[in-house]
């Protein structure tokens, strides 16, 4: 029989006895049939609703375990069987206690069951996002296939309004795609040929054809689901306390209950019935389910909610570690900045300078070359052929363009050439603006400068302001030179810059910073993986490499630095909620026991078994409710300016 129906049976048959409890003192109304009616009603409640508690209590007893069922079973059985004995020998009975306690305990469990299902449905919602089928190219025809038959390399098509089936790259068409369900990014994103698409996102206006790159368990959605599942069921270190407590709690409560009875009966000299009532109250109020629910429910709701915002928190440990973070360290390229350098200024004759540079860089894969070529293309310049191409290690490149020797490179390469004064003056200026300067020259004469910059992301400045508002110190780690690093730091408001860091040394710098307190490291590249692991909290950017995501404790699906602040806020909120829950659960149990034992009898404060049962049900309920309410808590940044 389900808990819900056991509850209803219990409620209906205890109700007459509750009515008597209320109306007897007021109007002298008595239950027809007196004790016999009570015996029959209570026996029904016991048989249908309470016996399952007794069964599982006995089963665990034989295994040397005790749990909340043990307490409920002992409480109800004692009240029931003692009342039968008391009835036979003409003493005071308390059948109603046994029935009402059963009702309240079941009430608590009914609500708790609902709430627990409520708290755990974040994963189900994520799984539901998955497309069920997809239009796939097979034998040169579009056919609709179930998702399980899609393999890597398949050509798929998504019409407007349809879901993208799997992760892939667009090969034809363009569209805007709503990625909010996966990344939490509320604005639809423009996608064109060459851009990657994420499975389970919704295609907007255009039809796109894309090649499947990741299917099944490898897709981003599947990875997210997996991560959320693990996080929701992980343990927070604070929970070790309750694990220990729950092992010894129930036997200790039983001992306290026996002591209570002995003190009342032997020392105070109360009647058996009264002494027994105190002992039963102790057993009932002490049910530790609130304690056991405090951490897992909050963890479940907190991680589920953050996943919806595109922030994946890997486990409870990370959540707890966030609380101690004093310093946030950022990688520069790709984290604070876009990671894609662009040409910002061209000094000299723009067309000539750019065309020359582009011709020379056409075969280079250097990131700066990519920026130059992109700009040349944007300016619609014709890139001419070169001959006798030479790369000069650590300096730049030279080649013959239209029969003349031209070069593109840094100051070292330009050192042998004539540099006009007006250009010389510009160099320092540009460098102070965090721009990398490239010299372009023909026949030992510098003809122009190209300034290239990896610009900060639009949100970087406000994100760092938000972290400052939280009282955190911010540090930037970069392999770039001091001048550029300082300039970027100034633009976004970073406190401290550590520049010229070799990729292998990032972890060491993080360790050094850890001497002043816990450190969170935010990064995205392969070379960030050691630092992400070493840091107390590793925050990986979702656009980053798989290895970085693997190493991070928190993954930001959106590429937005503001999420660092949100992740910290959410983790703190969740952890505080766990602490609050534990506090309330302990209060119920720790304060409830002395009251139930009759310690405050002298000042008229006692707790009957019925009220102990109600208090117990309410304690579980309040803990689970407080966890579910975490879904409604506002997450806002502390920064005033945005």
């Amino acid at each position, binding site marked *: 029989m389900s808990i819900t129906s056991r509850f209803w049976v219990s409620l209906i048959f205890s109700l007459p006895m509750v009515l008597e409890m209320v109306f007897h003192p007021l109007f002298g109304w008595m239950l027809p049939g007196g004790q016999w009616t009570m015996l029959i009603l209570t026996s029904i409640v016991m048989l249908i609703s309470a016996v399952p508690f007794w*069964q*599982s209590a006995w089963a*665990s007893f034989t295994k040397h375990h005790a749990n909340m069922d043990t307490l409920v079973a002992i409480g109800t059985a004692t009240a029931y069987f003692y009342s039968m004995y008391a009835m036979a020998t003409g003493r005071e009975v308390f059948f109603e206690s046994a029935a009402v306690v059963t009702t309240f305990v079941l009430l608590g469990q009914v609500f708790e069951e609902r709430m627990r299902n409520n708290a755990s449905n974040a994963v189900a919602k994520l799984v539901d996002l998955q497309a069920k089928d997809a239009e796939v190219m097979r034998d040169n025809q579009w056919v609709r296939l179930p998702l399980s038959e899609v393999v890597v390399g398949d050509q798929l098509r998504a019409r407007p309004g349809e879901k993208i089936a799997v992760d892939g790259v667009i090969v034809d068409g363009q569209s805007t795609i709503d990625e909010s369900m996966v990344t939490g990014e509320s604005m639809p994103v423009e996608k064109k040929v060459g851009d990657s698409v994420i499975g389970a996102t919704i295609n907007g206006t255009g039809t796109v054809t894309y090649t499947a790159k990741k299917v099944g368990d490898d897709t981003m959605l599947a990875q997210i689901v997996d991560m959320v599942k693990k996080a*929701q069921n992980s343990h927070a270190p604070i929970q070790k306390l309750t694990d220990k407590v729950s092992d010894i709690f129930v036997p200790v409560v039983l001992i306290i209950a026996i002591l209570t*009875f002995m003190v009342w*009966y032997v020392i105070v000299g109360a009647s058996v019935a009264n002494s027994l009532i105190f002992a039963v109250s102790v057993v009932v109020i002490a049910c530790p389910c609130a304690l056991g*629910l405090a951490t897992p429910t909050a963890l479940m709701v907190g991680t589920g909610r953050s996943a919806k915002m595109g922030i994946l928190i890997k486990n409870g440990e990370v959540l707890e570690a966030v609380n101690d973070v004093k310093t946030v360290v950022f990688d520069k390229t790709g984290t604070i900045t876009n990671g894609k350098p662009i040409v910002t200024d061209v000094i000299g004759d723009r067309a000539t300078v750019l065309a020359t540079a582009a011709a020379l860089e056409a075969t280079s894969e250097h990131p700066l070359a990519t920026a130059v070529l992109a700009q040349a293309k944007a300016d619609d310049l014709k890139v001419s052929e070169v001959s006798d191409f030479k790369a000069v290690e650590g300096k730049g490149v030279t080649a013959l363009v239209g029969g003349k020797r031209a070069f593109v490179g840094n100051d070292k390469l330009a050192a042998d050439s004539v540099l006009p004064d007006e250009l010389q003056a510009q160099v320092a200026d540009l460098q102070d603006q965090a721009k990398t300067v490239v010299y372009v020259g023909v026949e030992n004469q510098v003809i122009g400068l190209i300034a290239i910059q990896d610009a900060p992301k639009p949100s970087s400045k406000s994100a760092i302001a938000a972290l400052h508002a939280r009282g955190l110190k911010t540090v930037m780690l970069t392999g770039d030179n001091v001048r550029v690093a300082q300039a970027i730091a100034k633009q976004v408001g970073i406190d401290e810059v550590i520049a010229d860091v070799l990729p292998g040394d990032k972890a060491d710098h993080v360790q050094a910073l850890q001497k002043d307190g816990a450190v969170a490291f935010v990064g995205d590249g392969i070379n960030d993986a050691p630092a992400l692991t070493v840091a107390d909290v590793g925050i990986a950017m979702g656009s980053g490499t798989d290895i970085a995501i693997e190493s991070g404790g928190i993954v930001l699906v959106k590429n937005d630095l503001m999420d660092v602040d949100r992740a910290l806020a959410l983790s703190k909120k969740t952890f505080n909620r766990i602490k609050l829950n534990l506090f309330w659960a302990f209060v119920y149990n720790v304060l409830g026991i002395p009251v139930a034992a009759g310690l405050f009898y002298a000042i008229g404060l006692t707790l009957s078994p019925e009220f102990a049962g109600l208090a117990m049900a309410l304690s579980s309920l309040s803990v689970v409710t407080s966890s579910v309410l975490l879904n409604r808590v506002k997450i806002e940044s502390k920064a005033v300016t945005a």
Partner: protein
Amino acid sequence: MSQIIVLIVGIALIGFIIWWFFGKHAVATESAKVENQQQTVDVLVKGGYSPERVVLKAGVPAVLNFTRTDPSSCLDRVVFSDFGINQELPKGETQAIKIDTSKPGTYTWACGMDMFHGQLVIE
């Protein structure tokens, strides 16, 4: 007189509780048998888990069959926190749980409320 009897019985009961719940008692352990590259262990969920300690061989696909006969809502879920498994156990139904045995070690599982524990050893 009755006071003295209550006192003696009470102290005896406390002594029994301490011995029964805190004393050292053997834990039911079961090692999986490997058949056709597959290992299976049946776990009965009744007032706890029997066996309470399961030993699996590393690298061989493993399935634990959980059957709950206990009516307690305490036991209605089984959670393997290290594997991200949180499986509902409807009463009377056998639920197969696949365990990834690629990483040897000692893991624990627990009921949904973390009141009952079992141990999983992969070696």
